[in-house]
Protein backbone atom coordinates (compact mmCIF):
# COMPACT_ATOMS: atom_id res chain seq x y z
CA UNK A 1 0.00 0.00 0.00
CA UNK A 2 0.93 3.66 -0.01
CA UNK A 3 2.90 4.99 2.89
CA UNK A 4 5.14 7.90 3.64
CA UNK A 5 7.30 7.77 6.73
CA UNK A 6 9.91 9.82 8.48
CA UNK A 7 13.21 8.54 9.86
CA UNK A 8 13.51 10.96 12.80
CA UNK A 9 10.53 12.03 14.88
CA UNK A 10 12.40 14.88 16.64
CA UNK A 11 15.30 17.11 15.69
CA UNK A 12 17.02 19.83 17.71
CA UNK A 13 19.42 22.26 16.05
CA UNK A 14 21.30 25.35 17.09
CA UNK A 15 20.14 28.61 15.63
CA UNK A 16 22.15 29.36 12.53
CA UNK A 17 22.96 25.73 11.77
CA UNK A 18 21.51 23.85 8.84
CA UNK A 19 18.69 21.35 9.40
CA UNK A 20 18.06 18.19 7.45
CA UNK A 21 14.78 16.33 7.74
CA UNK A 22 14.48 12.97 6.02
CA UNK A 23 11.54 11.04 4.67
CA UNK A 24 10.99 7.68 2.99
CA UNK A 25 8.14 6.71 0.73
CA UNK A 26 7.07 3.33 -0.52
CA UNK A 27 4.86 3.97 -3.54
CA UNK A 28 7.01 3.83 -6.66
CA UNK A 29 4.19 5.41 -8.65
CA UNK A 30 4.35 8.63 -6.62
CA UNK A 31 5.52 11.47 -8.79
CA UNK A 32 4.75 14.61 -6.81
CA UNK A 33 5.95 15.39 -3.32
CA UNK A 34 5.34 18.29 -0.97
CA UNK A 35 6.86 19.44 2.29
CA UNK A 36 4.49 21.09 4.73
CA UNK A 37 5.27 23.01 7.91
CA UNK A 38 2.81 22.95 10.79
CA UNK A 39 3.16 25.41 13.63
CA UNK A 40 1.36 24.77 16.88
CA UNK A 41 -2.39 25.22 16.54
CA UNK A 42 -2.24 25.94 12.83
CA UNK A 43 -2.86 24.10 9.60
CA UNK A 44 -0.18 22.59 7.35
CA UNK A 45 1.56 25.28 5.35
CA UNK A 46 3.09 24.57 1.96
CA UNK A 47 6.87 25.00 1.92
CA UNK A 48 8.18 23.47 -1.28
CA UNK A 49 7.31 20.78 -3.77
CA UNK A 50 9.18 18.59 -6.21
CA UNK A 51 8.17 16.35 -9.08
CA UNK A 52 9.77 13.06 -9.93
CA UNK A 53 11.46 14.43 -13.06
CA UNK A 54 13.71 16.49 -10.76
CA UNK A 55 16.16 15.48 -8.05
CA UNK A 56 16.63 18.87 -6.45
CA UNK A 57 14.63 22.02 -6.01
CA UNK A 58 15.56 25.15 -4.14
CA UNK A 59 13.47 27.79 -2.49
CA UNK A 60 14.24 30.55 -0.09
CA UNK A 61 16.53 28.92 2.54
CA UNK A 62 15.01 25.52 1.77
CA UNK A 63 16.09 22.77 -0.57
CA UNK A 64 14.32 19.52 -1.29
CA UNK A 65 16.23 16.53 -2.58
CA UNK A 66 14.58 13.52 -4.16
CA UNK A 67 16.28 10.18 -4.65
CA UNK A 68 13.89 7.99 -6.61
CA UNK A 69 16.23 5.02 -6.59
CA UNK A 70 15.90 4.58 -2.84
CA UNK A 71 12.55 6.41 -2.53
CA UNK A 72 13.91 9.05 -0.22
CA UNK A 73 13.19 12.75 0.25
CA UNK A 74 14.94 15.30 2.36
CA UNK A 75 14.28 18.88 3.34
CA UNK A 76 17.25 21.08 4.06
CA UNK A 77 16.80 24.36 5.89
CA UNK A 78 19.74 26.72 5.75
CA UNK A 79 20.64 28.96 8.69
CA UNK A 80 17.82 27.67 10.85
CA UNK A 81 15.94 30.35 12.76
CA UNK A 82 13.68 30.18 15.82
CA UNK A 83 10.71 30.73 13.54
CA UNK A 84 11.51 27.44 11.83
CA UNK A 85 10.48 25.53 14.95
CA UNK A 86 7.50 23.44 13.89
CA UNK A 87 6.47 19.98 12.79
CA UNK A 88 7.47 19.18 9.23
CA UNK A 89 5.56 16.68 7.13
CA UNK A 90 6.60 15.19 3.87
CA UNK A 91 3.66 14.22 1.73
CA UNK A 92 2.90 12.36 -1.45
CA UNK A 93 0.42 14.24 -3.55
CA UNK A 94 -1.59 11.80 -5.59
CA UNK A 95 -5.33 12.21 -6.03
CA UNK A 96 -5.09 13.36 -2.44
CA UNK A 97 -2.28 14.40 -0.13
CA UNK A 98 -0.90 11.55 1.98
CA UNK A 99 1.04 12.77 4.97
CA UNK A 100 3.91 11.12 6.74
CA UNK A 101 4.02 11.06 10.55
CA UNK A 102 5.97 14.33 10.94
CA UNK A 103 9.27 15.50 12.42
CA UNK A 104 9.32 18.04 15.20
CA UNK A 105 12.09 20.59 14.68
CA UNK A 106 13.25 22.59 17.70
CA UNK A 107 15.66 25.47 17.23
CA UNK A 108 17.90 26.21 20.18
CA UNK A 109 18.71 29.94 20.46
Amino acid at each position, binding site marked *: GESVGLHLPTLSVQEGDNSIINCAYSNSAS*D*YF*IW*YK*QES*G*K*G*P*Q*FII*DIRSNMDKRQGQRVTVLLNKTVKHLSLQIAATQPGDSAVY*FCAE*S*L*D*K*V*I*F*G*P*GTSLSVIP
Partner: protein
Amino acid sequence: EPEVTQTPSHQVTQMGQEVILRCVPISNHLYFYWYRQILGQKVEFLVSFYNNEISEKSEIFDDQFSVERPDGSNFTLKIRSTKLEDSAMYFCASSEGGGRITEAFFGQGTRLTVV
Protein backbone atom coordinates in the same frame (compact mmCIF):
# COMPACT_ATOMS: atom_id res chain seq x y z
CA GLU B 1 -2.93 36.24 -0.61
CA PRO B 2 -5.90 33.89 -1.03
CA GLU B 3 -6.44 31.43 1.78
CA VAL B 4 -8.75 28.68 2.94
CA THR B 5 -10.85 29.85 5.88
CA GLN B 6 -12.56 27.64 8.42
CA THR B 7 -15.18 28.34 11.05
CA PRO B 8 -15.50 27.97 13.93
CA SER B 9 -11.93 27.77 15.18
CA HIS B 10 -13.07 25.76 18.18
CA GLN B 11 -16.27 23.76 18.65
CA VAL B 12 -17.30 21.98 21.82
CA THR B 13 -20.19 19.58 21.56
CA GLN B 14 -21.84 16.89 23.61
CA MET B 15 -21.53 13.30 22.55
CA GLY B 16 -24.36 12.32 20.25
CA GLN B 17 -24.90 15.83 18.92
CA GLU B 18 -24.55 16.85 15.31
CA VAL B 19 -21.86 19.29 14.27
CA ILE B 20 -21.21 21.13 11.03
CA LEU B 21 -17.74 22.40 10.27
CA ARG B 22 -17.53 25.09 7.66
CA CYS B 23 -14.91 25.96 5.10
CA VAL B 24 -14.52 28.54 2.39
CA PRO B 25 -11.99 27.21 -0.14
CA ILE B 26 -9.87 29.42 -2.37
CA SER B 27 -12.22 30.84 -4.97
CA ASN B 28 -10.80 29.42 -8.20
CA HIS B 29 -10.08 25.98 -6.75
CA LEU B 30 -12.07 22.99 -7.90
CA TYR B 31 -10.91 20.19 -5.59
CA PHE B 32 -11.81 20.14 -1.94
CA TYR B 33 -10.71 17.95 0.94
CA TRP B 34 -11.25 17.29 4.60
CA TYR B 35 -8.56 15.92 6.88
CA ARG B 36 -8.36 15.35 10.57
CA GLN B 37 -5.52 15.30 13.04
CA ILE B 38 -5.86 13.72 16.44
CA LEU B 39 -3.64 15.49 18.96
CA GLY B 40 0.00 14.62 18.44
CA GLN B 41 -0.64 12.38 15.47
CA LYS B 42 -0.32 12.74 11.75
CA VAL B 43 -2.79 14.38 9.42
CA GLU B 44 -5.27 11.80 8.08
CA PHE B 45 -7.29 12.01 4.89
CA LEU B 46 -11.06 11.87 5.24
CA VAL B 47 -12.64 12.77 1.92
CA SER B 48 -12.09 14.50 -1.39
CA PHE B 49 -14.76 16.29 -3.38
CA TYR B 50 -14.87 17.38 -6.99
CA ASN B 51 -17.59 18.38 -9.39
CA ASN B 52 -20.22 18.28 -6.62
CA GLU B 53 -19.56 14.73 -5.60
CA ILE B 54 -17.26 12.70 -3.41
CA SER B 55 -14.32 11.42 -5.44
CA GLU B 56 -12.65 9.43 -2.69
CA LYS B 57 -13.14 8.72 0.99
CA SER B 58 -11.17 6.91 3.64
CA GLU B 59 -12.39 4.22 6.01
CA ILE B 60 -12.64 6.88 8.70
CA PHE B 61 -15.35 8.61 6.68
CA ASP B 62 -18.24 6.34 7.66
CA ASP B 63 -21.98 6.92 7.52
CA GLN B 64 -21.78 9.44 10.35
CA PHE B 65 -19.91 11.84 8.08
CA SER B 66 -21.17 13.79 5.11
CA VAL B 67 -19.94 16.69 3.02
CA GLU B 68 -21.80 19.29 1.08
CA ARG B 69 -21.15 22.28 -1.08
CA PRO B 70 -24.39 24.14 -0.46
CA ASP B 71 -23.50 27.17 -2.57
CA GLY B 72 -20.68 28.45 -4.69
CA SER B 73 -18.35 29.24 -1.83
CA ASN B 74 -18.89 26.99 1.21
CA PHE B 75 -17.80 23.42 1.77
CA THR B 76 -19.08 21.73 4.90
CA LEU B 77 -18.35 18.59 6.90
CA LYS B 78 -21.19 17.22 9.00
CA ILE B 79 -20.85 14.66 11.75
CA ARG B 80 -24.32 13.37 12.59
CA SER B 81 -23.81 11.85 16.02
CA THR B 82 -20.47 12.77 17.49
CA LYS B 83 -18.41 10.32 19.51
CA LEU B 84 -15.64 11.04 21.97
CA GLU B 85 -13.09 9.74 19.48
CA ASP B 86 -14.16 12.36 16.96
CA SER B 87 -12.28 14.93 19.03
CA ALA B 88 -9.54 16.23 16.76
CA MET B 89 -8.43 19.11 14.58
CA TYR B 90 -10.30 19.11 11.28
CA PHE B 91 -8.62 20.72 8.31
CA CYS B 92 -10.20 21.75 5.07
CA ALA B 93 -8.03 22.01 1.97
CA SER B 94 -8.45 22.97 -1.64
CA SER B 95 -6.44 22.73 -4.80
CA GLU B 96 -6.78 24.19 -8.24
CA GLY B 97 -5.91 21.23 -10.38
CA GLY B 98 -6.15 18.11 -8.23
CA GLY B 99 -3.48 16.50 -6.12
CA ARG B 100 -1.27 15.27 -8.92
CA ILE B 101 -1.11 18.66 -10.56
CA THR B 102 -1.13 21.41 -7.96
CA GLU B 103 -0.52 21.64 -4.27
CA ALA B 104 -3.31 21.64 -1.74
CA PHE B 105 -3.71 24.64 0.54
CA PHE B 106 -4.94 24.06 4.05
CA GLY B 107 -7.06 26.13 6.39
CA GLN B 108 -6.17 26.83 10.00
CA GLY B 109 -8.45 24.11 11.23
CA THR B 110 -11.39 23.64 13.56
CA ARG B 111 -10.65 22.07 16.90
CA LEU B 112 -13.56 19.78 17.74
CA THR B 113 -13.93 18.70 21.33
CA VAL B 114 -16.59 16.11 22.10
CA VAL B 115 -17.52 15.86 25.78
